[in-house]
């Protein structure tokens, strides 16, 4: 008799326990269902929170991972949109201001307020301003093209030494005009790499222009060193260098170290160098010491 009662009691306890377990499980599943419903209606910030020792924790964690990935994608898109908005605002100043002064000069000429030598001067100034503006707009367009992935590379095997020499020679007259000394150290032998010649020339042009016009230096050095698998092209100057806190930002398309708004050249040169070198699979490094100078190093893979 006693044993039967004991058996019944044990059975009862087991049943109550099973009912309790089922109740807790249902609760967690309902919770999960509500979470998924909220995520489905667009709230990707939601997560399922659960203690690590719970048997459902693995499932919750996996679901959280999926939600997180979705959220990250959306964040990325929003960030790009924000970036573009900021760019439009600050670029509009970069275009409005030169256009305003350009119109100032032209209107003065048009109204006949100047003549003779002064008129000639004004025309020259207006012409130069227009060239600069054109250059800026071209740079901007190329940068946008690069960033949107629309730029098509035309790669050919070529002698990088020859191409580097060619790019540099066109700068010699300008360097001499600015009284900048130059040292060139490029090997005479053939070193073959796969290049998009136009892109490579553009990169070198921008780097040399940076050194010539922005760094206020007295000497520019170009060296080309052939290593086992890559070719290192280094352009260095002994100019004002890049301040420590600007170092990360100089490749950012809106940044100019020289804060005065009257510098020549767009702030886009280095941003274009970065995009192009990325696109061409070249490594880009730079070192700089404020007051001592900067050097930019391109790493180009050799053709096998």
């Amino acid at each position, binding site marked *: 008799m006693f044993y039967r009662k004991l058996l019944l009691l044990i059975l009862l306890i087991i049943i109550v326990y099973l009912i309790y377990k089922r109740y807790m499980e249902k609760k967690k599943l309902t919770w999960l269902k509500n979470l998924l419903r909220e995520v489905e209606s667009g709230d990707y910030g939601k997560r399922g929170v659960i203690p690590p020792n719970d048997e459902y924790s693995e499932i919750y964690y996996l679901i959280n991972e999926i939600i997180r990935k979705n959220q990250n994608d959306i964040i990325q898109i929003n960030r790009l949109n924000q970036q573009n908005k900021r760019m439009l605002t600050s670029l509009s100043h970069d275009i409005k201001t030169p256009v305003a*002064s350009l119109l100032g000069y032209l209107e003065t000429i048009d109204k006949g307020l100047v003549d003779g030598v002064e008129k000639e001067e004004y025309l020259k100034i207006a012409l130069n301003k227009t060239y600069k503006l054109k250059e800026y707009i071209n740079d901007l367009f190329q940068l946008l093209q690069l960033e949107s992935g629309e730029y098509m590379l035309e790669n050919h095997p070529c002698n990088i030494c020859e191409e580097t020499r060619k790019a540099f020679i066109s700068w010699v007259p300008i360097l001499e005009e600015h009284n900048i000394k130059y040292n060139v150290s490029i090997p005479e032998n053939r070193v073959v790499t796969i290049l998009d010649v136009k892109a490579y020339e553009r990169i070198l042009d921008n780097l040399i222009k940076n050194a010539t016009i922005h760094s206020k230096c007295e000497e520019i050095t170009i060296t080309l060193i052939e290593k086992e698998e890559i070719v290192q092209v280094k352009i260095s100057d002994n100019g004002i260098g890049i301040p420590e806190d600007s170092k990360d930002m100089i490749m950012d398309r809106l940044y100019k170290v020289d804060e005065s708004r009257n510098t020549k050249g767009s702030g886009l040169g280095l941003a274009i160098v970065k995009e192009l070198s990325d696109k061409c699979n070249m490594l880009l490094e730079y070192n700089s010491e404020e007051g001592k100078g900067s050097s930019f190093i391109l790493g180009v893979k050799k053709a096998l």
Partner: protein
Amino acid sequence: MENIIKVKGLTKKYNNFLALDNVSLEIKKGRIYGILGRNGAGKTTIMKSILGLTFPTSGEIYIKGAPIDYKDKKQFFTIGSMIETPAFYSNLSARENLELFALIRGITQKNAIEKALDIVGLEINSNKPFASFSMGMKQRLGIANALLHEPEVLILDEPTNGLDPMGIVEVRNILIDLCRDFSKTILISSHILSEIEKVADDIAFIEKGRVVEESSMESIRSRCGKYTSYVVSDVYNSARLLEENYENLNYIVIDNKEIRVFELNDKTNSINRLLINNGIDVFQITTQNESLEEYFKKLTGGDGK
């Protein structure tokens, strides 16, 4: 941009003391919101009200668009907080403390503890007991604990309190990274203007339980700063004249009426004369010379520190 937390007409009375008087705030998603006010102005009371730790005398608080339901703990899961001094078990290490909280509160991923400690820069495998932590490490563990369950919103009460200059910079960088890289919304309070100024996107000035001003940092900054603004009849010619007569003048054209010359200088008179002598009408010259500190002093009628 949606409001992730909205406070409307919040009033809190302790017996006869009016701690909060009709406070209304809107905290926008993905931005850092700073509440600036003197000690005792009501900053902590606002945060406690949002967290459901104290009940309003009147007014409404909305979390993600829904009014607070004090019986439903789940709506607070999306918020992580550190109010006043963070409290942990003195004999346990950082990791052990967080493991306890993980069991109590729950976590959202397997390596939640490692990730949280990594974000705040505390060593994962250290056995150092909490009792021997520096002030900076204690604050950082507090932030890590607030992050443990991957909340969307962080509410931190004076997170740089008691920190040395290095510690202040570290915490500031953690907050900026959390907002920029993880898209978190952060509500912080402080009585130090320079701290809020460096970090906040939006700011509310609280004085004696009242919101004296609520605004974005951007709009306050554009109202402060040092420049002279000229509203003229002919922007193009003004621009040309400025360039011709002044070398390297730092100016921008705002629209077809206004030119702003940065950095105050004694050139205002001569610029004005130059423009007028060339047939340009100058309708308005405004000089903006207020630093953020001066602005704050003016708002609160006294020393902001």
